[in-house]
């Protein structure tokens, strides 16, 4: 075990634990109300939202899963950069409309909005279930990230006890999420984001310096990929590996569709919507659409660590070890501890927000409408707090019992699922001519087709079309889903109550008086 690194790691972990419990008192509100516990009282201004959304969207996906894919396949893994570029024009156009209608009608989740807009209970239910199901593998990905750095510290990766450090870390996370709600990850996000920036700046200056500059990194990586492809082809049985520092012709369409599909998916997740709806006005959202790309640049630089791993000559049996192993090779122990803590905390923040988002959804859109319609505000919050624990246990079981080679596949499969609510959400922001039942049927068709195409000995996020190129299944099936909804809307009668009117989507929504508080000075 690496003692120095472990001590530094534990120090930072304890620091954020204390912050997590203390957060209950930060900008204190009545934590017995769901929008206090689950949306931090809808009072976060531009800067808090920037740190929270940044901490929430750029996760173990960014620091473990993307570099792993780059290490394994080269340029292909870089699809995450166009993905995170495409998100923000979409956010800029769509999210202010969603915030306005949600603030006017008190919506907390995607399913709240779809029910209010279409008056269709079946659609509300499937939107809610979609959000929860898609979140589980995404939380599992966070856990894989934490597990990789804990293994990097020198803890055994074999046997049942190997999960003990991760389980302890996770119990601590679950407890402070339970007591402090969204305030805990919002506060911890400050520490996390600053640590990640330090980690990235050090990595992209010091590692290239040691490896002789970027030109030699790309040259060495290119040679390493050529060798890996040749080795795979001559193995028994031969493996057809596509890898290199630019895309092979067969990777171009998968690359584009993965980027576009992932971008459509991201702001449909409960945790992203939680981040958007907890902001205090639409100015905050537009400001963030312009400033959050700073994190995308960080993501792009972190992705290059996969190439640096190749250039440094790492030979790994599991590509997901590339960032931890590269840091162990290149940095002194104390900085390894700091960086590993940054990665672990970087996984904790989104895991907390995701479990809160999923718990809000279950409580409001499954339990209340279908089980107990007469919950008090306090009962509703208790239910959500309990659910945040259950969702996390589910994700923990996921990684203990399902071994993974590429955690990024978790995220991409979750993306296929969550994309199926995109038509209901986005049509709903602009028109009521598409209505509840067709959207429900579109969802069923899209989901069934997705499962059919992804099914196989290995679940894969891309499908080889008969035309000879692969596509991201999620993008293909969401198009089918939307077409079904549009065509059936022409045929079926448009029934179902609509709570909203066109002006509800325009700027100018004011929050209820108890939520109007001046932005405190941090």
């Amino acid at each position, binding site marked *: 075990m690496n003692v120095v690194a472990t001590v530094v790691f534990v120090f930072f972990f304890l620091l954020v634990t204390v912050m997590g419990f203390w957060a209950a008192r930060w900008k204190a509100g009545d934590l017995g109300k769901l929008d206090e516990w689950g949306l931090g009282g809808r009072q976060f201004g531009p800067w808090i939202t920037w740190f929270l959304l940044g901490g929430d969207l750029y996760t173990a996906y960014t620091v473990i899963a993307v570099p792993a894919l780059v290490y394994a396949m080269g*340029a292909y893994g*870089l699809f995450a*950069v*166009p993905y*995170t*570029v*495409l998100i*923000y*024009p979409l956010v*800029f*156009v769509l999210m202010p409309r969603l915030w306005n209608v949600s603030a006017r009608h008190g919506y907390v989740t995607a399913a709240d909005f779809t029910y209010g807009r279409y008056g269709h209970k079946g659609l509300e239910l499937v939107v809610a279930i979609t959000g929860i199901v898609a979140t589980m593998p995404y939380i599992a990905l966070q856990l894989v990230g934490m597990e990789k750095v804990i293994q990097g510290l020198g803890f055994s990766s074999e046997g049942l006890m190997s999960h003990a450090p991760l389980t302890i870390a996770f119990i601590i996370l679950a407890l402070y999420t339970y007591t402090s709600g969204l305030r805990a990850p919002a506060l911890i996000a400050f520490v996390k984001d600053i640590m990640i920036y330090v980690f990235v700046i050090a990595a992209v200056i010091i590692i290239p310096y040691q490896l002789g*500059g*970027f*030109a*030699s*990194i*790309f040259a060495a990586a290119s040679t390493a990929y050529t060798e890996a492809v040749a080795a795979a082809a001559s193995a028994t049985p031969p493996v057809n590996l596509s890898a290199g*520092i*630019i*895309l092979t012709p067969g990777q*171009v369409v998968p*690359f*584009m569709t993965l*980027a*576009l599909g992932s971008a459509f998916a991201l702001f449909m997740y409960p945790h992203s919507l939680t981040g958007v709806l907890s902001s205090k006005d639409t*100015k905050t959202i*537009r400001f963030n*659409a*312009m*400033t959050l*790309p*700073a994190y*995308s*640049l960080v993501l*792009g*630089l972190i992705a*290059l660590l996969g190439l640096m791993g190749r250039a440094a000559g790492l030979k790994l049996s599991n590509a997901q070890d590339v960032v931890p192993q590269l840091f162990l090779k290149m940095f002194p122990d104390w900085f390894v501890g700091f960086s590993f803590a940054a990665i672990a905390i970087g996984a904790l923040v989104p895991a907390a927000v995701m479990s809160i988002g999923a718990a809000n959804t279950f409580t409001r859109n499954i339990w209340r409408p279908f089980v107990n319609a007469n919950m008090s505000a306090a009962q509703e919050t208790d239910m959500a707090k309990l659910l945040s624990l259950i969702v996390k246990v589910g994700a923990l079981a996921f990684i203990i019992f399902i071994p993974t080679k590429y955690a990024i596949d978790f995220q991409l499969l979750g993306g296929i699922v969550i994309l199926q609510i995109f038509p209901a959400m986005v049509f709903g922001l602009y028109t009521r001519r598409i209505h509840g039942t067709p959207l429900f049927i579109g969802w069923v068709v899209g989901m069934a087709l997705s499962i059919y195409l992804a099914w196989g000995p290995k679940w894969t996020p891309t499908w080889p079309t008969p035309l000879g190129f692969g596509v991201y299944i999620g993008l293909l099936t969401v198009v089918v889903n939307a077409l079904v909804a549009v065509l059936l809307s022409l045929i079926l009668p448009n029934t179902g109550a609509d709570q909203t009117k066109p002006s509800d989507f325009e*700027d100018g929504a004011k929050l209820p008086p108890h939520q109007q508080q001046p932005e405190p000075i941090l």
Partner: protein
Amino acid sequence: MKYILLLIPCVLTLATPFYNSVEPQLLGFPFFYWFNLLLVPVSALFIYAASKVEGR
């Protein structure tokens, strides 16, 4: 106008066949990499321009 400004970075981003090459290099980075990284601040500028056009 607002939508055109927002569409430009999206089209550039999805022009993958155009930027899938090693040359021309910049500071040791193949074209594929520096173009992708450059897109990030460029798209932020287009969003900023769109917000100015929108007048908020």
